[in-house]
């Protein structure tokens, strides 16, 4: 154990002497720290802003004057998605999905105003997020610091001296490994602090711990990769060139190839295609604005029979409201069916890309980190579903008001000058308030299980590789 510690300390002293390594680590720490600070501020601002908009939107709805209930169906409502606390570290898909949705009758709108559509377009390859720095740059920093950790000793002949002096090979390797991992951990520190901060501001502790552990594993994996290459290479130059090639392949190429492959294998037809299918279905269902549409004859007959009257004017409820409620229900079923298909398509596309995690630890950590931070595709879908549930609820409540609070006779004469077809504004408080809460910690842990397995798989693979390389080193 003492020898291991000694080797680790020697490596650090060597870095200190050569300056290169210390410069690299320093830059890494400063970059992560800066990005953590910038992102924390930005996420806070965004959170406050969206909360504000949500309140404005809700109070505007409640402040609306007396009017026809169906007008409120079209007046609609806006919901805004609050960012998850960990999105200051891992913004994930948030910048690419819209953060607000307009909810109205008869339609499911898409989320609008994605940040990327308001950006300079400079951040398509890289971003200042701590997650990007950890996933892509930290491996490079570790390579620059450690590519020669064994090859240097080999070239100088000091490795043989150490071994003949009785230092065990395992101790050498462990010492170097710990030294390398230590450099990665220094860069992880700002991220860990930010995670603690996220816990303080309400994120579940299981999640933040898991999140940091995931990144810790990632650093272990890269430490092991660097050590492995340095162990099997005979010269500094080869270990350097091989590591850079590996870095390009694992950190830059495979993630991109994963998304291009997914897009090519499962082309998604997009929302518009589904819109047509929806419209076609809707024409069969009948237009809910037009109570005399033949599509509602059956409904009318049933209702007349139920109340034992001959004319819709004699019904105890407003038939136009009944039709509005009925057709909204049918229509929502169709809309949801298509929305579910589309979300399913998106998820299966994403899953193809995520399977590349078996080929690159960067893909694994990226997926893991999004899942844990709650900035993944599924969370966006959850937002869409929750928004839809709210939409359906308040639209149907308004239709209910339409049925029971507005007289049929007044309603059909609503455009006549002497008729006031309105209901009291007090009815608008049917709107429940919307707040998008992060999923419970255990659920997120459960979702990211597969990706933590990918990370563990990488840990095992790299450790086995080192073992093999060390056996060869003996000969």
């Amino acid at each position, binding site marked *: 154990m003492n020898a291991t510690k000694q080797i680790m300390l020697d490596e650090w002293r060597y870095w200190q002497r050569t300056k*290169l390594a210390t410069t690299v680590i320093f830059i890494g720490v400063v*970059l992560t720290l800066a990005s953590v600070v910038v992102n924390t501020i930005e996420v806070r601002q965004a959170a406050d*802003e*969206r909360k504000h908009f949500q309140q404005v939107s809700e109070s*505007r709805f409640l402040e609306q004057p007396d*009017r026809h209930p169906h007008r409120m169906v*079209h*007046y609609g409502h*806006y919901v805004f998605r609050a960012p998850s606390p960990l999105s200051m570290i891992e913004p994930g*898909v948030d910048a690419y*999905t*819209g953060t*607000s949705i307009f909810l109205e009758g008869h339609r499911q*709108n*898409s989320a*609008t*105003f994605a940040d*990327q*559509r*308001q*950006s*300079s*377009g*400079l*951040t*398509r*390859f890289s971003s*200042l997020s701590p997650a990007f720095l950890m996933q892509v*740059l930290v491996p490079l920093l570790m390579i620059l610091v450690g*590519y020669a950790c064994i090859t240097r000793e080999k070239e100088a002949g000091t490795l043989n001296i150490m071994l003949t002096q009785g230092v065990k090979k395992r101790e050498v390797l462990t010492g170097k490994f710990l030294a390398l991992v230590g450099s990665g951990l220094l860069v992880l520190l700002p991220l860990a602090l930010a995670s603690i901060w996220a816990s303080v501001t309400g994120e579940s502790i299981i999640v933040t711990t898991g999140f940091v552990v995931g990144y810790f594993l990632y650093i272990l994996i890269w430490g092991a990769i660097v050590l492995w290459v340095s162990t099997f290479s005979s*010269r500094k*130059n080869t270990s*350097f060139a091989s590591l*850079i*090639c590996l870095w390009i392949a694992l950190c*830059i*190429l495979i*993630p*991109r*190839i994963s*998304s*291009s492959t*997914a*897009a*090519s294998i499962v*082309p998604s037809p*997009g*929302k*518009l*295609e589904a*819109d047509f299918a929806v*419209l076609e279905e809707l*024409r069969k269902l009948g237009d809910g604005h037009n109570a005399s549409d033949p599509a509602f004859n059956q409904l009318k007959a049933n209702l007349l029979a139920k109340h034992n009257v001959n004319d819709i004017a004699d019904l105890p409820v407003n038939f136009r409201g009944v039709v509005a409620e009925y057709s909204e229900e049918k229509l929502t079923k169709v809309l949801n069916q298509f929305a579910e298909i589309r979300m399913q398509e998106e998820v299966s*596309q*994403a899953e193809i*890309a995520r399977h590349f995690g078996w080929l690159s630890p960067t893909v694994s950590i*990226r997926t893991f980190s999004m899942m844990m931070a709650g900035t993944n*595709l599924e969370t*966006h879908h959850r937002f869409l579903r929750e928004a839809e549930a709210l939409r359906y609820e308040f639209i149907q409540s308004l239709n209910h008001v339409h049925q029971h609070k507005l007289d049929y006779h007044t309603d059909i004469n609503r455009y006549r*000058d002497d008729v006031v077809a309105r209901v009291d504004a007090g009815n608008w408080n049917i709107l429940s308030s919307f707040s998008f809460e992060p999923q419970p910690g255990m659920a997120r842990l459960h979702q990211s299980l597969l990706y933590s397995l990918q990370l563990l798989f990488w840990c095992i693979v790299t450790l086995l590789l080192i073992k093999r390389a060390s056996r060869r080193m003996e000969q």
Partner: protein
Amino acid sequence: MIRFSDFSRETIFLSRQPYVLIFLMIVLALSIFSVWSGIAETQAQQNTIESLLEKDNVDRAQALEKQSSYGSAAYYSFHLTYFPPSPLAFAAMGQRDIYPWKHRIRMLALEGQIYETDADNPELSFLGRFDFAFLISVLMPLFIILLLHDIRSSEREAGRFDLLIVTARNQHTLWTARALVLSIALMLVLLLPLFVGAAIMQASLSKTVLMALITLAHLLFWGAITITVGKLMAMRGQSSPRIASALLALWLTLAVIVPVVSDTAINKTVKSPNGGDLLLLQRETVNDAWDLPFSDTWDAFLSKHPDWAEHTQMESSFEWKWYYAFQQVGDQKTEDLSNAYRNAIAKKDTAAGVVAFFSPPMMTQRLMTSLADTDITASLGYEQRVRDFHQSLRYFYYPLLFNKSEFNLQVMDDLPRFLP
């Protein structure tokens, strides 16, 4: 002067280096993949547009059949607008996965419709595409660094340096010839798939050549830097990994740090109206109109369309002409905010163009997407075409609505058509 014999000698030398050959084959494979996936995606988009166009016509015809007034015809008929990928889009997908390239609109207030996006899978956008532009702008510099950083130092470290210097006619020509052969080989494996792809997609020759020239310029930049830095550092006795580390640091600065820091700075300095404000204002103005006196709507409407001043009398408390008038007034009232929103995007894009002068990878990316019509300018251009088309719909319907023409389905044959 470099002679042909220098070239052939170096070519033969390098072709016997298995690492160099494997490396070039991998780059060729990557280039083929980038072009293939680009073409697959472009074709998927073209197919989508074709099938949407077909469905759009059927859908509108079906919707119009049921109508009995021009007002409801305008309300129920949607129009597909689209932005087909240019022939070169396969090489640089640019912003097409973020900005919409298809939209269905109708004659209601445009501001309530235009921000709807039928965007791509956000997770794939987040991961980014592996297109040719990415290969050239981000990865090619790394390839050049790997290939060229140690042409001197590796020989020195292999102990052949002195021998080579003694036997070579002129040591300068030796390195130049070797660097040239490597660069040309890299250039060939990168560009061959591009030319094949351009031929398949029938891209214009001049634009393809320009695309190749951008590649060449970017290659020259990194080649020159790598060789200069390599030479200077090798003369000081620095090892190959140190040379490469310095070059990688430069790459990191130019390809990552400069764009990312500038992006943050641009977002801080260019003030953009909040999308949320735009949404709320648009909705309020359109919905308030129902409760306002008719004259409010008419006054605002007539300020832009005085021609209809004689036709604003209302016979019922709901008339389609009034309905569309307040839709237009809604657009008028949000116009400033909406313009500011788009101007901010354009301003940020311009600022990014300035930043690109300090970041050759960004410059390459921008030039390529601009050639392929997949940049922000092209997307804003599409949005403008949608706006113009929407305007033409209004000009088509207003006479029919204000003159109280009897509904005639045949008139609908003259509906404006969107031309991309």
